[in-house]
C-alpha cells in the first residue's frame, strides 16, 4: 500500500482517487483554494480518502497527481515537493481553456507538461493519465492480464519516477507504457492519435513510435 496525493477534487481528481482507493492505496485529497464543504465532497465522491493539506501530501505521498485544469497549474504552490514525483494529468484544450497565463510568451515547441515542469522545476514531473477521459477512468480499468486492458502512457525525465507511476497505473487497472523523456509525452496531447482513443499496450507504443519516426 502506498500513499497517493491528489491535488484537485474535480472530475479527474476524484476519478483517479477512486481508482487508487479501490487498489488499496491510502489517498489524500487537497482542495482548491476556497473550496467549501470539502470534507463532505471527499467523503461522498471518494469514500475512504481523506481531505488533506498540500503540506501533508508533500510529507506523506509516494506520488502526487496534479489534477487541476492546465490554466490553473500556476496557482498550485509545489515548493515543498522538491524531488517529489508529480503526475501532470492536465491538458491544454484551446477551444475550452483559451490561452492561459502559463502560455504567455511560452516556447511554442514545448509540450504543455514541459511548461508545467519549468513552472515547477523542483519536482520530478511525469506526464500521464491525461489522454483518457474521466468517464473512461471509471469504466476502463481491468485486472492485470485481462485481454482488453487499456494502456496508459508515462513520460518523464526521471526513470525511477516513471517506474513508480507505471506501477501505480498497473495497480489501478491499466497497462503502463513508458515513453521515456517528458518531451516524448507530446504524442499524448490533444490532437494526437493516442489522445482520447482506447488503446492497448502495443498499439499505444506503436502510435507513439510512429509519431517519433515521422518527426
Amino acid at each position, binding site marked *: 500500500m502506498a500513499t497517493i496525493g491528489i491535488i484537485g*477534487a474535480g*472530475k479527474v481528481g476524484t476519478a483517479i482517487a477512486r481508482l487508487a482507493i479501490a487498489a488499496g492505496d491510502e489517498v489524500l485529497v487537497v482542495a482548491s483554494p476556497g473550496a467549501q464543504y470539502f470534507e463532505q465532497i471527499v467523503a461522498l465522491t471518494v469514500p475512504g480518502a481523506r481531505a488533506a493539506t498540500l503540506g501533508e501530501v508533500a510529507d506523506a505521498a509516494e506520488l502526487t497527481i496534479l489534477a487541476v485544469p492546465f490554466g490553473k497549474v500556476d496557482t498550485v504552490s509545489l515548493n515543498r515537493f522538491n524531488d517529489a514525483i508529480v503526475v501532470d494529468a492536465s491538458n491544454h484544450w484551446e477551444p475550452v481553456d483559451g490561452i492561459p497565463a502559463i502560455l504567455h510568451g511560452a516556447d511554442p515547441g514545448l509540450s504543455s507538461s514541459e511548461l508545467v515542469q519549468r513552472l515547477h522545476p523542483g519536482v520530478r514531473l511525469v506526464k500521464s493519465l491525461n489522454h483518457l477521459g*474521466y468517464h473512461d477512468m471509471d469504466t476502463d480499468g481491468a485486472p492485470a492480464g485481462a485481454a482488453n486492458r487499456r494502456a496508459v502512457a508515462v513520460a518523464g525525465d526521471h526513470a525511477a519516477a516513471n517506474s513508480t507511476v507505471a506501477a501505480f497505473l498497473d495497480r489501478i487497472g491499466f497497462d503502463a507504457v513508458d515513453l521515456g523523456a517528458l518531451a516524448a509525452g507530446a504524442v499524448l496531447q490533444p490532437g494526437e492519435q493516442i*489522445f482520447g482513443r482506447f488503446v492497448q499496450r502495443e498499439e499505444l507504443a506503436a502510435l507513439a513510435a510512429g509519431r517519433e519516426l515521422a518527426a
Partner: protein
Amino acid sequence: MELGVYSFGSLARDPQSGELVSSAQATRNLLEAIRVADEVGLDYFGIGEHHTPEMPASAAATILAAAASVTENITLASAVTVLSTDDPVRVFQQFATVDALSNGRAEITAGRGSSTDSFPLFGYSLGDYDKLYAEKLDLLLAINANQNVTWSGSTRPALHDAPVVPRPDAGSLPIWLGTGGNPSSSVRAGLLGLPVSYGIIGGAPARFAPLTELYRNTARANGMAEADIKVSVGSPGFIGEDGKTARDDFWPHWHNTMGVIGSQRGFAAPARLSYDRDASGTGALFVGSPEEIAERIVALHGALGHMRHFFQMDFGDMPQAQLLRSIELLGTRVKPLVDEALAEAAGQPTGA
C-alpha cells in the same frame, strides 16, 4: 416524473436535397419541435445557448417567446444560459418576458456551458471565467429575489435600487444551476439554495449518485426546504420503434457530431463498439425502443431520484422528421411507461 427534450438548434439535413437547412430554417425547426413536444404531452423543452454555424440557437429566449404563443403546458427553459458572457439584467428581463407570455412556464438554467465561443463574441476573457460566473450568478439571483436591485461587483456596472421588470406572477423565476459533474458545483447549488441540473454525456449516469447526495446534504445543511431540493438530468437520447433500428439510425448522427467536436478538441471520434456499449444498459446514451428507454430512466431514477429527465436528440444533421418522431415516441410511448412504473413502485409496501 417530468420528461422532455433539449436542443442546441442543430442544422438538419434535408433528405430530399441532401443539403443542410439554413440557420434561419433551423430556428423555425426548433420552434416546431417545441410545439410537437408540447402536443405529445412532454413536460419540458430546453434550449442550450450556442453560437456556432452548426448550432445556431444563440438567442434562446427569443425562440422560447415564440414557443410561448404556440404551446399550452410545456416548461420553456434555457439549458443552459451561458451566464458568464451575458448580462444578468438582460437575461432576467428576457426570461421574465417569456414567463409572462407563457403564463408562468419559463425557467433559466445557469451554467458555464461546455463551449466558450461566446467569450470572444462578447468581448470577455477566458482568464476571468470563474469570477464572471460567480458574480453574474450572484446578480441574477439578486434580481430574481427583488424587483429593485442594489448590487456592485467588478464585472459589470453597479446597480442602485434599480427596478428590473417585468416581474413573474409567481414572484420569481425557477433558476437551476447546470453542471457537468464537478463536485464543487453540486456544493455550490446547495449553498445557493438552487435546484441542480446534471448534464451527463458520458460514463455511467448512476455514478452521479454521490453528487446528488452531496447536493442534497449541502442543501439541507443550508436550510433549503425539501420541496425546493430538486435534481434534473439531461442526456443524449433518441427513441425509435425498436432498439436496433434506433441505435442504427442515431449512430451516424452521433458519430458525425463527435467527429466534429473531436476535431476541434483533439480527440478521436468514437468507434461503433464503444457507442453500442454507451447506448445500452447503464451507459450515458439513451438510445433505444420506448420500452428500453423507459426502463433505463426508471432505473436511473432509483439511483439519482431525479424529478426530470430530458434528452438531446438532434445531433449531427438529423433530419427534422426523425427528430419529431423521436419526440413523439418520448411523449406518447415512453412517458406512460415511466409514469406507470413509478406509480407501481410507489404503491409497493416499503421493503418489498
